[in-house]
């Protein structure tokens, strides 16, 4: 599903963000990427959803070489990758329904189908009564659930979560992690980047640790 070969990423500074990173994630895997702040976790996720291109090396996602992908192919690939961020990245001027519907509008689904799918997804995430709310009116956990709803509404092959619980208290953290596990059980490949050792405690999932841009 995801293959990185000797990926090196530099932003021009002295210390590269990623050095010689090689990684394979198979279909249906649940992988934690961990490491301290600045270890390269976010850069690695950005390479996978092609927000950044490797300075050298190759990255293949769902069979596509990200070094040789055009704008249109990239857009189509991103429809198969759901992304969840620590800061949620919700549009404050759009309500919950509109934020989630965004991912379907870009595909050009008819409004009736968009309504149906959004209702279903929000119900699944326990947000059925929050459709008309705007992000600032929601709690952190609710906002993150909206972000997850937007990420999974297109039934993505891969779900990337960058510090998804970074802004949440322990109860909400467990709630979100339980949700991610459920999404994984339904067949989605999930990659979670986190620096929280609490999350990794007692987990039997695969853990990839980054330190100063290298996998250790």
């Amino acid at each position: 599903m995801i293959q990185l070969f000797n990926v090196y990423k530099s932003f021009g500074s002295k210390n590269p963000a990623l050095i010689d990173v090689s990684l394979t994630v198979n279909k249906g895997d649940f992988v934690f990427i961990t490491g301290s702040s600045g270890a390269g976790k976010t850069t690695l996720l950005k390479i996978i959803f092609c927000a950044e291109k490797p300075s050298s090396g190759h990255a293949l996602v769902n069979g596509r070489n990200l070094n040789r992908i055009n704008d249109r192919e990239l857009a189509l690939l991103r429809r198969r990758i759901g992304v969840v961020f620590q800061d949620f990245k919700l549009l404050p001027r759009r309500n919950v329904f509109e934020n989630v519907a965004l991912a379907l509008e870009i595909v050009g689904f008819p409004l009736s189908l968009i309504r149906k799918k959004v209702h279903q997804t929000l119900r699944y995430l326990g947000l059925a009564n929050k459709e008309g709310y705007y992000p600032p009116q929601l709690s952190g956990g609710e906002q993150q659930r909206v972000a997850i709803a937007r990420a999974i509404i297109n039934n993505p092959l891969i779900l990337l979560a960058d510090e998804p619980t970074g802004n949440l208290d322990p109860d909400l953290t467990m709630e979100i992690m339980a949700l991610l596990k459920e999404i994984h059980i339904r067949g989605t490949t999930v990659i979670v980047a986190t620096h929280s050792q609490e999350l990794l405690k007692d987990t039997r999932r695969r853990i990839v640790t980054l330190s100063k841009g290298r996998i250790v």
Partner: protein
Amino acid sequence: MKISLFRYFVRQALANILDNRLVHLVGVGTMAIAFLIFDTFVLVFVNLNHWTVEWGRPLTMSIYFKGTPEKIVLESIEKELLHFPGVTIKRFISKDDAMETLRRQLGDKAGLLDGLEENPLPASLEIILSRDKAGDPLPYQMKRKLERIESVDEVHYSEEWIERIQAIMEVIKLIGIVFGGLLFLAALFVITNTIKLTIYSRKDEIEILKLVGATNRFVKIPFLIEGSIQGFLGGSIALIILFLVYITAITRVDLRFGFASLDIIFLSPQFTLFLLLMSIIIGFIGSTVSLGRFFRI
């Protein structure tokens, strides 16, 4: 394009406009002023052109004689004139006829002419030339030929001053092109910056759209519609203002001078549509330019 997508694009464009009301208001206002100046130039030009075409067709030519021409001379001139295409001899005005006409025109003040020892008015022959367009060389050739005749004093034709107006029109045309070009650039500059501001205000949204798999085209289209709407509004306001000024102006001219012959026309529906289309195109181009810059970043 799917209807649901088109509806989405239009909705987004309108939402963008409403969210950035003030920026758009200033943008539309500035564009309306730029278009108004340009449209005014076009209107003046169209009217001057209209007058020269209307008044120059058919063309009247007056041949003034030294004294009273002999009948045989007059006949030979008439015969000569009829060789030219489209010439109709209107009438011969003798010195006495001319004086009589002048007396009639002076009305109560005709007594002033009683003091004259001899009639100073020349006899003349009026001819009409029917032509398709103003500006053909025939009248000038005729004038030169006629003025070589011994008994002919002077030849005047209505196109002489039309030619002068045409020279002025050439200048106006040149100013219009230069000025129009500058206004075009100004309108483009305004729209480019307005759209750029709205793009920056929606930077996060664009980022998220791209993240969930929106193509560049999908992100750009609402901004292109937004620019076109802005151009359309600016162009429409300019044309409405111009029309209102035109209505007011023609009423005033009629009242003050009774200028029935000074027929001021407005732009034809086709021309109006063309100007409106041009404002939309300028809006579209302006958006394209600012989007191009943004997407290069």
